[in-house]
Every structure is written in C-alpha cells, then in structure tokens.
C-alpha cells in the first residue's frame, strides 16, 4: 500500500512540474511543506487514492503528512 501511495504522489509531482521526486519518504513527510503540494494537487491526490483504495482521505478531517494518509488507509 505504501509503495502505491508513493507512486501516486510522485506521478502528481511530475505531472504538475513540481520537479521533486521523493525517494526516501517517511511518515513525517509534509504534503505541503516538503512536497510542495497546493490545494488543487491535494484534491488530485484524494481522487487518485480514492480510486485506488476506495478511501477518501480528507473525509474525516485534515491530512497534513504522508503518515496520516497511511493511517487512513489501514
């Protein structure tokens, strides 16, 4: 599951010209500060993850780190 999430994040970074590929990602990696995602990129992330795992990661509140995404998908 973690590998797939990282793959999705990297594809969003590439597609939006954020030019940041995350090799070593950990639970505390911040979606906005570390990865540079804005609200539109985060919305894309929610759709891509929901399409893969059937879970809306923002449904129950705000997500700010990669670890919080993993927790939502457990």
């Amino acid at each position: 599951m973690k590998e797939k999430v990282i793959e999705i994040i990297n594809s969003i970074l590439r597609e939006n010209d954020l030019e940041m590929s995350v090799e070593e990602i950990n639970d505390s990696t911040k979606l906005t500060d570390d990865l540079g995602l804005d609200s539109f990129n985060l919305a894309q992330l929610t759709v891509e993850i929901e399409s893969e795992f059937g879970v809306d990661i923002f449904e129950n509140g705000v997500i700010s780190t990669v670890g919080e995404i993993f927790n939502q998908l457990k």
Partner: protein
Amino acid sequence: MIFWIERGIEIPYDELLEDLNNDNPKSDLPGYLYFLTLLKKLCGGRIFSSIDSVIHFLIENKDTMSFQIQTSGTTSVPKSITVKVSNCIRYVKKSKEESLKIWGMGYPHGSFASTQVFFQSLMNKETIYYVFGIDFKTSDQIFSEYKITNLSCTPTFLSMLLINLKKEYPSVLKITTGGEKMKNSLINSFKKIFSSAEYINIYASTETGSLLYSTTEYFSIPEKYTSKLKIEDGTLRVHRSLLNEVDKINDDWYDTNDLVEFVDDNHFKFVSRSNGYLNTGGFRVSPLQIEEKIMEIEGVKDVHVYGKPNSLLGSIICADIIGEGVSSKIIKSELMNRSIEKQMIPQIIRIVELFEHVSNGKKKIMI
C-alpha cells in the same frame, strides 16, 4: 491606523484617503488596487476630508449605489452582475467603539464574499490582511505576527491553513466560511488550532448576497424569510425581492439551482450546485469555458469537462480528452503556459478514445 495588508505591505487609512482623492496610487498591490478602484467608482470623484466622511457617504447613499462583479457565466462568456451596496452591507454591524479587529480575507478580490469583508471592515475602520493567495508556508508567521481576529474564507482555504498551522492561535475569535459547502468534520478539525473562535457558516451567492447562517453544515430557513425562501424540487428558491438584479427576473421565484437534502424536518444541507457552474475551492468556474481553452491545444479533437465531488475542494475539475499526441502532462503544461488560472486547469485528465453522446446532450465517457 492600518486599512490593508497585502504581501506584508501595510497601507494606512491616511494613504487610502489620499489615493481616493488623487490619481496615481503609490501602491501596486492587486487586491488593494481592486478595492480602491471600487471605492473611487462609488464615490464618483468626490473629495473627502476624512475616512469618516467616506463611510458616512456610503451609508447615506447605499440604496442608490451599485457596482459590477464579474462572474464566469454558464456560457463561455463571463457575465457581469450588478450588486447594490445596500445588499452588500445588509448585515454589516457598525460598532460605536473603536474596533481592533484584524480581518483575514481568504476570498479572491472581485468575489462577492470579499466585498462583504471589505465593507464590514471599512465601516468600522478595521484592518484587512489579504491572506488569499499567500504562500501557505508563511501562514504561521502571518497569524502569529498580525494577530488576525476574524478569518473569513472558503472551506478549502481553511483546510489549507489547518494543514500548515501547527500551534494554537487564540487571537482568532471568529471564523466565517462561505462559497462552498462546509463539512462538520472540518469544523471539528479547526477547534484545536483556533480554540477561541466562534464559527459561522454563510450561504450566499453573487445573485442574492448573504441569506443563511449556521454554526454547522446544516441550515434552516429563518422566520423572517419564511415567505421569501423555499425549497422546491430539491433546490433552494429565492423570492425576487431578495435579488440583486430583480429587473432581469421575470418570475417571482429565482431558482438558485443549489441542491439541498433534508436531514430532519427543519434542517437541510447543501449537496451540490446544478446550475452549470462548478465550484472548486470556492471558485466558480464554467466547464464550457475550460473546454474552449482545451480545444485550442494542438492535437485535441474533443473534450468533456465535468466535476467530481471532492472532500477538499467541493468539486474537482476533470477532463476527458480525445486527441493525438497529447497527454495529461502536456495538457496541463499547455494550459499553464497560456496563463490559465489555476482553478480552471483540470486536475484529473484522461485521454480516451471516444465519448458516447446521451439523450440529455451531455457527453458520456467510453473508455
């Protein structure tokens, strides 16, 4: 006394008065210039001796003055809506004492909601920090340094703040959101960070101004509006007497096309808009306008733009495209190169082989 803060630059009320009475303002901040221009138009070239006299003039003439707001139309042509000043300041509270409020304006200048914040602040000579468009990494510094007391923004803007703010900000005493449907889970999320803040959820539109208030995602029709608001066929209808442009409506009732769902006998929540617009992160965008922009890209043969419900943005913009030699990345890059506003760039783009056209005229996707 500070009137406006934008990108860390402070504009005092004295400078606003000077700019109102003269041409060639010193500042080129886009948010400030928008509201300065609006105020100048309303004041019609008059010279004022003080900000108090400007406020007095606005209050005295609120019923006869109006201004234009641009909104994306249901066709590809943006339309202009006339807004009466009286409708804009319908609920403005005028304080008798000197106010120390500092507003965080989290709406884009030019939107109806931003003008409401502008008038509310101006009428009481308060300060606005134009937080819309800030780099969210600086949000901690802004909230810590400027001690914002009243935050007015879309739910998306609030979500982005919450992602970036980590400590408590007790200076924030009131949070008002509008422009998109709110979720109770988001209301619960901000209570840790803005623990002192009272919360108000506003239902408003450019056509009607502010109509409904709530402290949750659920609304009810207040007693004073029982004869002026109704829900019919699942959508909210507004009596013509509450509209900004009453002359353009032939029927007694205006259909907002905002779909509602009852949660009990008296309370309802907004589900979505069905009026041809998509609401993404508080921006109202026209799918037809986006389709037109995408069709200009070389290799695109046909496109279908639509919205998908999204817990962060309200709706996320999606595009299904038929074309040759195009990819999601190419389409996004082309749109960015053409300086298309970010909210109009579809986040989900699929390259497909054909659409199926269905009876209602909408395109249905075939993969």
